[in-house]
């Protein structure tokens, strides 16, 4: 049957469901005694130049007419119309969407023509003629349905990456303990990150939507595995050892759950309170991060997921009483999980002593924890000049290439440069949020929204941390910190948002 097109319209039954081109559907509706059935138009020798319409391969034009087939011209007219129109559209995914709509229009018009008294074949022919010029229509549609590149965002991330490389070359030159090849190694990591971002940007983000549950389960399993079998450093089991390649902080990769959670929210749309309940259950992922003893990561992640769920409820995705649902959610979000974590931390001796003491200090309780890092960060910040180095060497802050990177920049290059980096990062986050909220595809909107919230949140925390306004904690500055996990998260998220922008005009919601 491969390549065989039944050519009798009565068998095919052009009725709006089984178009003439859909021989698979047509093959189930053979009219008894039909002499056209299984007559091959295209037995062999017509390779090349085929076109796919709605998942069906059309043979090339110009093949010989089967002798005596009185339907040949009628069929070819419609095939040809669609082929010519869709040939003008370069994006394959858009062709599918447009082809479906055009096919339905032809069938509607054909039905109307039949009701006006025309024979089926004539009705179809007239319907195709009424469609107008396929080349003109196809070219106009091609201008609309094409891949798009957010050059502004690409330029912003590119600029951030270049500054990042320059800053780390500077750090490598000053701090001999980082090793001679530090600057080069970090540059390669940043360039690899940029390359990964471009690769993600080329991928269709809708696949995350399609495999949301599977991906989420993978995250849960991976987090559980790391929390039991990972390498423990400073009381946190959040690293994995890769032998000669060193130790990688995988806990930061937990942030990649954010776009996956967006896809889960999209999946449960319209399911009412049951859907909200399921989404709350999927919000339990930060608990797995807590198992790794990464308190700050778990808290950040929890609030971002909560904000995403609130956006989904606010946009009426679940068809529930929005005000009541939001009020209930935030009462629960604000009270129960945090108090539970704090109680666990303080009274349950679950965390390392210094962490428990740090949480006590953060809550204003009596604590033996001396936040040396915070005090020093504030001191270095105060002694920094607006432009140029302060003349003071940073000797007592651990992690100037990571947690205290902004302090390093302010101290050696000036506050203006530090502010420039901060502003650039806010600009990237703002662009991400703008692109996300201007999406008509809700999946792209919620995934991008989560990524934007994340970038915004970690940048704000890093700036406050640099100013010594919040207690020192494990964090990273997106696109900047010399933390492979953090670097990867930032670039992957930027790639996802670029992919959302790229596919906005060629994919309808739910299409993969």
């Amino acid at each position, binding site marked *: 049957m491969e390549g065989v097109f039944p050519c009798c319209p009565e068998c095919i039954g052009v009725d709006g469901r089984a178009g003439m081109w859909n021989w698979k559907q047509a093959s189930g509706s053979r009219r008894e005694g039909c002499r056209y059935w299984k007559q091959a138009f295209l037995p062999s020798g017509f390779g090349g130049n085929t076109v796919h319409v709605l998942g069906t391969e059309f043979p090339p034009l110009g093949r010989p007419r089967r002798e005596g087939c009185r339907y040949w011209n009628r069929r070819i007219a419609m095939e040809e119309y669609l082929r010519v129109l869709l040939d003008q559209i370069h994006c394959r995914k858009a062709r599918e969407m447009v082809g479906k709509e055009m096919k339905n*229009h*032809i069938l509607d*018009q054909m039905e109307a023509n039949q009701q006006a008294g025309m024979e089926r074949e004539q009705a179809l022919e007239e319907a195709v003629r009424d469609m*107008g010029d396929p080349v*003109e*229509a196809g070219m*106009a*549609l091609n201008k609309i349905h094409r891949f798009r590149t957010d050059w502004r965002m690409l330029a912003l991330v590119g600029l951030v990456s270049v500054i990042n490389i320059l800053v780390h070359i500077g750090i490598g030159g000053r701090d001999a303990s980082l090793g001679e090849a530090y600057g080069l190694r970090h540059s390669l990591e940043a360039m690899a990150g940029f390359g990964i971002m471009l690769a993600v940007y080329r991928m269709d983000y809708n696949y995350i939507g399609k495999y949301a549950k599977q991906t989420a389960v993978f995250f849960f399993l991976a987090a559980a595995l790391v929390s039991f079998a990972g390498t423990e450093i400073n009381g946190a089991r959040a690293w994995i050892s890769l032998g000669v390649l060193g130790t990688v902080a995988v806990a930061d990769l937990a942030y990649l759950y954010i776009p996956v959670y967006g896809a889960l929210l999209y999946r449960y749309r319209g399911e009412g309170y049951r859907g909200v309940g399921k989404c709350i259950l999927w919000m339990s992922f930060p608990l797995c991060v807590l198992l790794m003893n990464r308190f700050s990561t778990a808290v950040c992640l929890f609030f971002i997921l909560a904000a995403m769920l609130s956006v989904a409820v606010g946009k009426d995705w679940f068809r529930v009483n929005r005000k009541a649902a939001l009020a209930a959610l935030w009462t629960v979000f604000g009270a129960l999980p945090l108090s539970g974590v704090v109680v666990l931390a303080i009274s349950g001796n679950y965390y390392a002593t210094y962490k428990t003491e740090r949480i006590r200090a953060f809550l204003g309780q009596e604590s033996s924890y001396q936040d040396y890092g915070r005090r020093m960060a504030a001191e270095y910040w105060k002694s920094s000049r607006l432009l140029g180095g302060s003349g003071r060497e940073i000797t007592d802050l651990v992690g100037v290439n990571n947690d205290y990177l902004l302090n390093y920049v302010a101290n050696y290059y000036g506050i203006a440069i530090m502010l420039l980096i901060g502003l650039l990062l806010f600009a990237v986050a703002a662009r991400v949020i703008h692109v996300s909220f201007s999406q*008509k595809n809700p999946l792209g909107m919620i995934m991008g929204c989560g990524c934007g919230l994340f970038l915004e949140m970690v940048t704000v925390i890093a700036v406050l941390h640099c100013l010594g306004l919040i207690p020192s904690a494990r964090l990273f500055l997106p696109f900047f910190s010399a933390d492979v996990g953090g670097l990867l998260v930032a670039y992957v998220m930027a790639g996802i948002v670029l992919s959302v922008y790229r596919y906005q005009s060629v994919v*309808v919601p739910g299409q993969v």
Partner: protein
Amino acid sequence: MDKTLVSGSMAMLLLKLLSEGDKYGYEMIETLRRRSENVFELKAGTLYPLLHSMEEKKWLDSYEKEVAGKVRKYYSITREGSKALKAKEGEWREYSRAVLNVLA
């Protein structure tokens, strides 16, 4: 009728139709033809690029709905679309009044 007279205002006419309720492509062509007493006979090849470009501008939203065994793509007007319609209607009334004044 001269086609250039129609083409400039077609977006406004489609927005007007959709402001009265959601419609699919063929339905819009038929409604437009009927209400204009066969003056506006829009080709599908003209209609769909226009609808898709208005969707890009976020003047329209679309969704699929099954009616009588057929899955059709329906278009609905958005808040931005309603604003655009109001603006275009104002421009059109001003323009037609000016033309009528000159012809009078």
